[in-house]
């Protein structure tokens, strides 16, 4: 069974640039999560979906971050105008019951 797939693995940006992260969850998993993990910290929820519906995006900086899951399968997280404070690893996970994580995308904003 394929795991959660994320791309790209790494991204390096200048402040103000845009970037998109892509996630392919485990087949059949209806709930998908995006987490932000700053260096030396635990994962912090940004947004999660049940199928194509957003369940909770209260922690998503809505002025610059957006996330979609249009067909209830793959998902894209986008940062419109990156800031140095966005430097972190972005993790995608899917479930039911137990979270299965992808390897993450390490973002550096210079």
């Amino acid at each position, binding site marked *: 069974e394929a795991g*959660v797939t994320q791309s790209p693995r790494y991204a390096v940006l200048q402040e103000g640039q845009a970037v998109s992260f892509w996630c392919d969850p485990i087949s059949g998993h209806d*709930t998908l*999560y995006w987490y932000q993990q700053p260096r*030396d*910290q*635990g*994962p*912090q*929820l940004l947004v*999660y979906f*049940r199928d194509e519906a957003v*369940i*909770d995006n209260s922690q998503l900086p809505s002025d610059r971050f957006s996330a979609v899951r249009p067909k209830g399968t793959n998902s894209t997280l986008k940062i419109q105008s990156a800031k140095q404070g966005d430097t972190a690893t972005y*993790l995608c*996970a899917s*479930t*039911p*019951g*137990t*979270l*299965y*994580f*992808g*390897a*993450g995308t*390490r973002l550096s904003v210079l």
Partner: protein
Amino acid sequence: AQSVTQPDARVTVSEGASLQLRCKYSYSGTPYLFWYVQYPRQGLQLLLKYYSGDPVVQGVNGFEAEFIKSNSSFHLRKASVHWSDSAVYFCAVMSNTGYQNFYFGKGTSLTVIP
């Protein structure tokens, strides 16, 4: 509000020694509890989980954890650590009503000295 506290940011032990990593949670009701491990440049991997029943749960690679409701704790233990256990360990709680939301602690970085 749900939260998880891992009071020890870093733990160093010698190979072969026993290990306990502490976790305390705040949750109204009976939680679902998890321990995950993260190796460098990788995502989190599940070590073990507790949903109900026997409060001592066994996980992979000889890890176990005990749910103590009266103390709101879910400490992780291992009888004898190996250098390959060096990693960051995260405790998490999942809401068991409605949609599944997970809350993570800040993690404990374990270094095993050969």
